[in-house]
């Protein structure tokens, strides 16, 4: 508590001296709210000593104004009417503290998001600003000097998702000496990037840049890697989370398996029979398999849905024989649940690709030579199912290929958003197709979006390599010919909007640039981690500009495509940002929390116990000897439910006490 001179007179019984400031926010507020009029109105309210309007209160001179007034006018309360407290409350609290006053002798009035931006009539908006200001001026009188509570932070970090984003975040933290748990749902880390051949706009090999990072995860002493595992429960609170991870049985002891793959050869299924997930079904695998050659960990996995031993217990177990004395295969493995303690969590759960079957007119699933961009990616890759040869389903090489963009993007009937990467991704694939097959390539686009570094240049390169660009959203793909050159081909019908007529373009292969969607279980996941999702289902950042990797829950960060579609460089940048945010908290050692906890006025407590079961955090206990309830401030999260419920009014809440709220109610109704 700051007690210097008269400013230290913080009690209610003393002389209340309020400074009121209204911010123009440039034109954002002043265009609709008559700021000088509000300042004049406030000036006449009881307790107000200074009342001013100013262009930008959050600027240095604005903050300086407050501090100067605190000193000169001996203010002991400050009210600022400006934007949302969720944006700048801490800014002004700091300013008040710098002026020598306890930062909680401050109240903020939201007249931008809740007033000037949402109304149209200047008189009404000004009236609303006055009444909100009036409420704050009444309320601030009851404010008390408080201190931020400090919660120590557990130094370990959990990273959820082992794609390039999660990998980068984990390595960054581990390199800084922090212990990291990296949890991945699939049997290997690598995510979508591991399936790519090359990356735009540099055309460097995806595997060459990703694989070393994957190995680094495996070998880093500070990283505990759990693949084939999922988070199933998150408990605890900021800085001290208790997370339960489900480890699915892979029927192989990860410590013992050396990845020799003898068991795969020995499996009683002589031929691979089941669709291979990594090659998006373009090749087959056995029940015992390694996801892909560079998989990390280099450990086989047994598919319980396909393995005869797991399903029926009646197999010759030739795999066991092949493994011999290493004894890595273990059919007795059961699902495990492991509990870990971490201080921070980074969510890097990625995205899901749009299901092209949802747009039936493009014929995916109907015409075999209509493929998705990811399928083509596997065909182009030298390690892919065709060894890098781009072939049609009948083995022929395509002479003409069409790329349809915005499949499941920018479409109100499926997904409204732009998936951001498909233009560049398609151009990259188009160039590779040209290079591999010399086929005619036509790209059908709505708008080419190439704003990234080196991307416009890449577009230019595509044009120079003879790739045709037709601006128009393809209406349909058909297999009926109306002209001789269309016989036996897939025909694209589209309006060439730049040429101004409808065209029919026959091709051998069609590539659908499918967009990105939130993961199917995004809603369950965000509930588990106490986050929010935007309307479209992506995880919601705390602020779109100022806090892009933070969430509304302290210590939980988001990075990569789980927050919205983005390319590899942006995902990695966010991974680094999230890691840095976590590091900042860890190295500080504590999180500051709003001192909005509840406490009990013992002499008023009747010992009725009605509050005890209400607390979801078990912060309230009953002291049998005193016959009074007690609140553990460290556990209290400040929701105030018990305050509202106490029949004797003996529970109070800092920052949101009854008298503060009542005075606010009175205030908002005092002015029309």
């Amino acid at each position, binding site marked *: 508590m700051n007690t210097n001179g008269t400013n230290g007179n913080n009690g209610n019984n003393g002389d209340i001296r309020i400074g009121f400031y209204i911010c123009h926010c440039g034109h954002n507020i002043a265009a609709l709210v008559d700021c000088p009029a509000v300042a004049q109105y406030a000036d006449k309210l009881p307790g107000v000593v200074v009342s001013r309007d100013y262009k930008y209160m959050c600027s240095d001179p604005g903050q300086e104004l407050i501090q100067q007034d605190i000193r000169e006018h001996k203010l002991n309360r400050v009210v600022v009417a400006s934007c949302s407290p969720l944006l700048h409350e801490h800014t002004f609290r700091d300013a008040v503290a710098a002026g020598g006053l306890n930062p909680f002798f401050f109240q903020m009035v939201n007249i931008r998001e809740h007033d000037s931006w949402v109304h149209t009539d200047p008189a009404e908006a000004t009236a609303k600003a006055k009444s909100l200001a009036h409420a704050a001026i009444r309320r601030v009188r009851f404010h008390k000097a408080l201190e931020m509570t400090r919660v120590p932070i557990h130094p370990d970090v959990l990273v959820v998702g082992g794609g390039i984003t999660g990998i980068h975040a984990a390595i960054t933290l581990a390199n800084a000496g922090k212990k990291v748990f990296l949890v991945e749902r699939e049997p290997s880390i690598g995510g979508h990037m591991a399936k790519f051949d090359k990356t735009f706009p540099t055309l460097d090999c995806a595997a060459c840049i990703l694989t070393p990072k994957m190995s680094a995860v495996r070998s880093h002493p500070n990283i505990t890697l759990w693949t084939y595992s999922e988070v199933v429960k998150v408990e605890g609170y900021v800085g001290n989370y208790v997370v339960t991870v489900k480890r699915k049985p892979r029927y192989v002891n990860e410590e013992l398996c050396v990845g020799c793959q003898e068991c795969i050869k020995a499996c009683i299924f002589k031929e691979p029979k089941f669709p291979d997930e990594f090659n998006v079904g373009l090749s087959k695998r056995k029940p015992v398999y390694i996801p892909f050659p560079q998989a990390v960990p280099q450990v086989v996995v047994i598919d319980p849905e396909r393995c005869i031993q797991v399903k029926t217990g009646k197999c010759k177990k030739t795999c066991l024989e092949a493994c011999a004395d290493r004894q890595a295969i273990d059919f007795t493995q059961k699902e495990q649940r492991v509990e870990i303690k971490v201080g921070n969590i980074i969510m890097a759960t990625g995205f899901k690709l749009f299901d092209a079957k949802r747009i*039936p*007119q493009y014929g995916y699933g*109907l015409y075999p030579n209509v493929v998705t961009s990811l399928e083509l990616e596997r065909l182009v890759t030298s390690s892919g199912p065709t060894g890098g040869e781009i072939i049609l389903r009948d083995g022929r090489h395509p002479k003409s290929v069409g790329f349809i963009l915005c499949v499941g993007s920018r479409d109100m009937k499926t997904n409204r958003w732009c998936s951001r990467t498909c233009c560049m991704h398609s151009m990259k694939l188009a160039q590779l197709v040209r290079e591999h097959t010399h086929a005619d390539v036509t790209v059908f686009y709505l708008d080419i979006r190439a704003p990234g570094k080196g991307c416009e240049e890449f577009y230019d390169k595509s044009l120079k390599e003879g790739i045709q660009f037709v601006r128009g959203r393809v209406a349909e793909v*058909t297999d009926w010919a109306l002209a001789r050159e269309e016989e036996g081909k897939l025909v694209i019908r589209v309006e060439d909007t730049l040429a101004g007529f409808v065209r029919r373009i026959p091709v051998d292969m069609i590539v659908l640039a499918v967009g990105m969607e939130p993961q199917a279980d995004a809603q369950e996941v965000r509930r588990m981690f106490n986050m929010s999702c935007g309307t479209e289902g992506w995880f919601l950042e705390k602020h779109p500009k100022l806090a892009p990797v933070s969430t509304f829950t302290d210590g939980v960060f988001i990075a990569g495509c789980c927050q919205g579609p983005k390319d590899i460089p942006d995902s990695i940048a966010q991974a680094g940002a999230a890691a840095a945010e976590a590091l900042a908290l860890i190295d500080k050692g504590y999180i500051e929390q709003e001192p909005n906890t509840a406490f009990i006025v013992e002499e008023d407590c009747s010992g009725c116990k009605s509050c005890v079961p209400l607390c979801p955090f078990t912060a309230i206990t009953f002291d049998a000897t005193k016959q009074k309830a007690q609140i553990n401030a460290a556990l209290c999260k400040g929701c105030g439910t018990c305050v509202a419920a106490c029949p004797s009014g003996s529970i109070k809440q800092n920052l949101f006490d009854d008298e503060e709220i009542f005075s606010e109610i009175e205030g908002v109704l005092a002015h029309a």
Partner: protein
Amino acid sequence: MKYSYFPGCSLKGLGRAYEESLLPVMKHLGVELVELEDWNCCGATAYMSVDEAKAGVLAARNLAIAEKTGPQDLLTPCSACYLVLNKTKHNIADFPEIKDTVHHALGVANLTYTGATNVRHPLDVLVHDVGLDVIKEKVVRPLKGLKVAPYYGCQLVRPYATFDDAWNPTTMDRLLATLGAEVVHYPLKTKCCGGSLTGTVPEAGLRLTYILLKEAVRRGADVIATICPLCQFNLDAYHDQIDRHWGPTRIATVYFTQLMGLAFGLSPKQLGLKRNFVPMKELPAQSATV
């Protein structure tokens, strides 16, 4: 089972074979149809081109008469009528100015509209209310070996139908399979037949008809099954001109109700099959089974 029945002008004129087959088939399945008294033209696409408000009034008169007739759903076999009546229902619900005009005009004739009547197509009713299992029981002459291209046209599935997909509907496919027919993969099933343009701008309209016929033939169909009187007329009546322009594409186009009648063992005469320009070939199994 009971429905109100709005035949529409076509079923009394060019499309009379549709009514001639629909009525006995419905009767055979125990479905009672009550024809609206003094129904008027729905307005079709033509009236909507002239005056939206009056087009709404025209359709709403029928809907009001249907409400007076009874609480049952209103059955209309013509796609244009189906679209216009449903569109009018939507417009009255969505747009106050249309609602006001319609109520005002109905008031002149002491009619009221509350929006209570559902407008349904026989295809929807047969498959979803009567049920394929019931229909299957009635099949005495399965259409074995008959390759049918299911053709839905535009206005039944677009944009108001809720009972099937707008791009790839399958209701008729399932119905035809139940009758024992072989359903040909016919991705043109919701393409436009040309509508009234076959008469007004034949070079444009008939080309669309031609593509439909040509592809049905190419895909090995023996017959095209349709659900709309205008589609049937376009696909059936212009073979002369189409053949002259683009080459021969002889294939018969019949109403799905005619195929149902045949499978139920009703006589072809009773089903209006003689009204086709291009007659349907004899059923392969027909002589064998009976």
